[in-house]
């Protein structure tokens, strides 16, 4: 199997004094980020920030698999875009409220993840990536032909509805705080999962699967649970995006989307909590900038991809944590 040692960089533990500083610093950063996110819709276009939040959650869910389990899925668009379709259909055709529509999307993505994961974990490393890509492409063709997705048109004008039947989400600010709440809940789930004993076993599998097996862990089952978890959370992000943008189209299930989430995670920093969020911000921001120019996004995406792989494999956050400044601040390198 492919060595995964380059993905995370294991470093000696920081000195105790730095660790304390790091805890304080982390809290300060967290508070600062929260203040920024709460103030953001009053200074910037809320839909743009909501879009970033959706992709940030998507990237964090993807990183749960790549960064903490060492599995590179090239098919996460199936869960993101699939859940977008399920949520949109549930909200528009079945008339479910936003919370139930989102749940429908998450459940659908998890079921899809269970099937795809069970097949894909039979191979490792590069094969795993190819199998997930092929399976998601199969789902793409299925979406193209199934009547409920409306083919090339997609599902348009999805209603945001009333949260729990009471809170009207068509108000932009209300919607924003709903999205922010879902985003924070999603991240907390990921954080809790990664730092649980279960997450430790996943890291052990990432570092050395054979050894984890010899220690008595049924690695296949652990990988499958991580895969389903990642798929469900990617589905949460996709369903949320369908409610934000009020449409679900083939773009979200296409293989390019799977590539994009890899890029977000890579730019931000594989195996870090914050990296995928930063990466999502950078990629969505970049696309937003390029949307108005004639220059195609694919070229920029491709070049950034190559540059990241050649020069910045730790990503923005990882490189910063490894820099002299990052070390002085007591940031712990990812591991």
């Amino acid at each position: 199997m492919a060595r995964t040692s380059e993905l995370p960089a294991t470093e000696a533990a920081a000195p105790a004094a730095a660790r304390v500083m790091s805890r304080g610093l982390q809290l300060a950063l967290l508070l600062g980020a929260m203040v920024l996110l709460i103030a953001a819709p009053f200074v910037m276009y809320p839909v743009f920030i909501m879009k970033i939040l959706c992709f940030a959650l998507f990237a964090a869910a993807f990183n749960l698999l790549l960064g903490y389990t060492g599995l590179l899925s090239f098919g996460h668009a199936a869960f993101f875009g699939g859940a977008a379709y399920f949520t949109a259909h549930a909200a528009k055709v079945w008339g479910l409220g936003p919370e139930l529509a989102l749940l429908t999307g998450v459940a659908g993505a998890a079921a899809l993840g269970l099937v795809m994961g069970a097949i894909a974990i039979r191979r490792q490393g590069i094969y795993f990536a190819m199998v997930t890509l092929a399976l998601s492409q199969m789902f793409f063709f299925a979406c193209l032909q199934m009547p409920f997705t409306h083919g090339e048109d997609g599902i348009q004008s999805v209603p945001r509805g009333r949260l729990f039947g009471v809170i009207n989400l068509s108000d932009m600010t209300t919607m924003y705080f709903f999205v922010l709440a879902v985003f924070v809940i999603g991240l907390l789930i990921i954080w809790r999962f990664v730092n649980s004993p279960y997450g430790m076993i996943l890291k052990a599998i990432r570092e050395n699967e054979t050894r984890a097996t010899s220690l008595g862990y049924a690695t296949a089952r652990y990988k499958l649970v991580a895969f389903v978890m990642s798929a469900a959370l990617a589905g949460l992000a996709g369903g949320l995006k369908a409610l934000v943008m009020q449409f679900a189209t083939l773009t979200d299930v296409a293989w390019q989307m799977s590539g994009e989430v890899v890029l977000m995670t890579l730019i931000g920093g594989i195996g870090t909590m914050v990296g995928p969020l930063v990466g999502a911000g950078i990629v969505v921001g970049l696309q937003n900038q390029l949307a108005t120019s004639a220059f195609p996004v694919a070229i920029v995406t491709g070049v950034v991809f190559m540059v990241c792989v050649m020069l910045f494999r730790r990503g923005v956050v990882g490189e910063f944590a490894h820099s002299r400044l990052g070390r002085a601040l007591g940031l712990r390198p990812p591991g």
Partner: protein
Amino acid sequence: MIFGVPLQAFLGQLLVGLINGSFYALLSLGLAVIFGLLRVINFAHGAQYMLGAFVAFLSLKWLGIPYWGALVVAPLVVGAAGAVIERTMLSRLYDLDHLYGMLFTFGLALTIEGTFRWYFGASGQPYATPKALTGVFNLGFMVLPIYRAWVIVASLVVCLAVWALIEKTRLGATLRAATENPSLVQSFGINVPMLLTLTYALGAGLAALAGVLAAPIYQVSPLMGTNIIIVVFAVVVVGGMGSIMGAIVTGYLLGIAEGLTKVFYPEASNIVIFVIMAIVLILRPAGLFGKEG
């Protein structure tokens, strides 16, 4: 009539399947050759196939080089470009996790295709079938366009030639030895880095050759590579990349399976290969011809 389907339609789709299978075989062969030595999944393989078709198209348009010239020029140009990429960039990633090679070539594919799409638009450009190969053979029970027959024969010959090169010649033996133990082979005075570069160039050149063969059948379009490469990945997973012959045989078989699906259940024709892949993974995870690993 065969199973309630008119013979003409049956044979027609069988032919389409064989043609597609020829391209699957050529492309998965190139992927297997590159993977065998470099341990890199060449995501740019589809882009290199597209480049081959474009070199043929542009060299005819700008330089007046005909089809037969393009069959030689395109693999050389694309192979040389591949060698440069391998030497300057890809070779720096060998010591890392193999996934980085895949991510790098993915970025490369996006860049190449994005650039061509920017210059030439997304629509296809026609490429005329060479004069000597226009027309049809009338076999009595069906009509066989000469060009299609040529593609099937040419791809078979190329596949077998590459197989023989790797399995039966001294150079191939060195290649296989370098796959097993690069440092040992290097200690015998063989320039292994050069061998790696040549292998990548060979794989890229094979993709380009497939592109030239495809140009008169499909239109020359910047997107022709992405459409086919994901299917070829599935083919490679089914075959298992351990064996060159496995890649070739699987390519043809799955092409035919796809063609026959078009006859009996057309709705499923573009997912049948993925379904077969899933079934093979469940029954025989290492692939039909693969070794576990």
